[in-house]
């Protein structure tokens, strides 16, 4: 096993999720098997569309910030700013209140020659896939015409956030659809290893919009179980009928282990693997080999043997095609070891947060590692016989967990796996 002290570790977390906007609340709801789903009804263009969704409560402005200016920001900006602030503060780093009424110019020096956060170079890598479409829709809903005018000067959410917080490191937006945030974590880990930054905020964000809901509905990817929304997200269950959309954001603060002296260490980011199906823009491949290769690559990267994996946080969104494809990939990788490894899908409680899903599921793994309990797959009443796994239905399972892996797969045939190791 690799020496954890030489690695990259998580020293802070910030979250706005359907299960709570702080880590203790999220952990308690996750282990209690709480569903965040409820029915949301859109009435646009004279057409009613009712869907079960998992929404997050609006974040409050951090203490000392201009609450009115914060409230006036687009929701996606509020989510990311609140999460970045919380993650920095959780890592013990100072966060001076930003000026939210104007946007610092990219070429202007931050007001502090001495870095404001106590670390000279903090980067930001954000998983955010449909950012421009959602931004244009939000602007249009407010009467704006940004999408029609085509100025082409649209800054990304990561860039806007980095400037507002005075982060001196690089900013990057990455997208692999529902695997986006795993890539964000990987890029941040590499930046630290390569010496490009001293710390890095990584994670993902997803805000639900009416058009986004309609697009997935028309794809026939969503559960239509509006009569019983809290039982709608049922990964691996025989009676599943699609996924439940979720929204929120989660940000992790990464630092070198040997630079995180005296700080709380949630876990080591031990490995990452990725592959592509090369099959279809939407539908997962029937061939388990590409997804299996992503899992194997992550384990190799982490120097972890199959038998050392104590928990698998599955991508399992609650679609028959996707759940079965993942079960086949797990069987191909773990073989006879698979029946010993607990597998759960926390999307049964949070819904599917798309671009933010991998970040929220990394949080779920941190909870599992810290509390030594496997979060359950709720609503798993009749396991699909084609998903023969060691399920953790309905209730959390006390279990010794040193190594957890989190699968996240996405449109465009992206497969990713993250390996997290318990802090020494």
């Amino acid at each position, binding site marked *: 096993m690799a020496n954890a002290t030489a690695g990259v570790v998580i020293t802070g977390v910030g979250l706005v999720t359907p299960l709570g906007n702080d880590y203790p609340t999220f952990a308690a709801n996750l282990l209690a098997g709480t569903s965040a789903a409820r029915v949301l009804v859109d009435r646009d263009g004279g057409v009613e569309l009712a869907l079960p969704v998992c929404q997050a409560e609006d974040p409050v402005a951090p203490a000392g910030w201009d609450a009115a200016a914060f409230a006036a920001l687009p929701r996606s900006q509020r989510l990311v700013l609140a999460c970045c602030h919380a993650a920095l503060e959780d890592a013990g780093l100072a966060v001076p209140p930003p000026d939210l009424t104007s946007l610092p110019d990219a070429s202007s020096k931050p007001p502090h020659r001495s870095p404001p956060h106590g670390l000279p170079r903090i980067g930001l890598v954000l998983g955010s896939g449909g950012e421009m479409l959602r931004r244009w829709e939000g602007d249009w809903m407010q009467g704006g015409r940004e999408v029609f005018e085509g100025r082409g000067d649209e800054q990304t959410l990561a860039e806007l956030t980095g400037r507002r917080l005075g982060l001196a490191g690089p900013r990057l937006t990455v997208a692999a659809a529902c695997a986006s945030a795993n890539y964000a974590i990987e890029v941040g880990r590499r930046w630290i290893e*390569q010496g490009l930054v001293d710390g890095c905020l990584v994670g993902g964000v997803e805000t639900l919009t009416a058009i986004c809901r309609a697009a997935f509905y028309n794809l026939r990817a969503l559960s239509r179980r509006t009569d019983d929304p809290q039982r709608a997200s049922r990964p691996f269950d025989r009676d599943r009928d699609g996924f439940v959309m979720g929204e929120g954001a989660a940000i992790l603060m990464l630092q070198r282990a040997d630079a995180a002296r005296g700080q709380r260490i949630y876990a080591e980011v031990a490995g990452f693997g990725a592959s592509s199906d090369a099959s279809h823009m939407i539908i997962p491949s029937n061939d388990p080999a590409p997804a299996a290769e992503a899992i194997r690559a992550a384990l190799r990267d982490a120097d972890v043997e199959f038998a050392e994996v104590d928990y698998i946080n599955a991508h399992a969104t609650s679609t028959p095609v996707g759940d079965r494809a993942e079960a086949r990939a797990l069987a191909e990788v773990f073989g006879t070891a698979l029946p010993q490894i607990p597998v759960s899908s926390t999307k049964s409680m949070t819904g599917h947060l798309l671009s933010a899903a991998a970040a929220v599921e990394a949080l779920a793994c941190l909870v599992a590692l810290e509390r030594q309990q496997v979060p359950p797959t709720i609503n798993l009443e009749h396991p699909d016989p084609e998903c023969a796994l060691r399920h953790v239905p309905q209730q959390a399972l006390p279990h010794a967990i040193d190594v957890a892996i989190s699968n996240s797969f996405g449109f465009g045939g992206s497969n990713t796996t993250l390996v997290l190791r318990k802090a020494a």
Partner: protein
Amino acid sequence: MDLPAEVGFAVPLAGWGVAWADLPEVAALRRVLPAWAPAQTPAHFLKHADEQTVVAVAAVDRAIRQWELPLEAVRQWPIVAAPQCVGRIAGAATLGRFARGGAPTVSPHLIPQHSLHSVSGALSILLGSRAPNLGISGGAGAVEEGLLGLLTLVAGWNVPGAWLVGTAMEPEPQLTDEGQCVNQPRAWAVALALDRQGAAAACGQLGLHAARHPSAILWSGAKETSADPAPAALAVAGPRWAELTRQLEAAQHSGRPLQAAWTLSAGVRIELAAACPSRAARAAA
């Protein structure tokens, strides 16, 4: 822990391809799949693709053909695509329809085909590549973000090579409420083929240098670009894929090497050197 004052690495450039097309030309390109697409690829694969995806495919095709890149090698490379404001035309058209007819009017292709991951995802399928694919940026900083993201992953992963495909519309489409263009936008793409293992002859390199010491922090996004021997005059304020496409095309035709460098935040500097025209261009000359 002692760290060197500067870190850096460079990756050989095996070739590049550029492409641009106005909207009628994009419509024509949709109907033509590259010769290297897998045989089972449906003929309508690009029917719903974003305009930037369509020119991205053309740029990769040109890179493969001009530089005679070995298909068996380039199919194993990760694909990083850095589009800028992808999905504007589809997004505008969707808003207009949605206002009138609500949810049923929204195309199921909107998110799969017009999001940040869409360009790299489509290229991955067409190339038959099982290596990772991902989208980067999507905003005004797509050039710097794309180059930085690519180099970060190539340096961190044990991969034989990689594709970076940058795309943009310039001018950006000006659209009516119904999503109809009232100007003449053009889609641009540049494909850079990075080959770490020398499967193809190098024609340049892409490098990254980073100052580690806090005193070396630079706060600006300054850019210097030149086509040796006479520095090129640049018309736009920030680096754009369209501008780089034009520069590479000019270098190809003139036979003059192209050098470009971007200094990002935190002392990160990216350098691109494209040293010679392609074998195909030399043969034509």
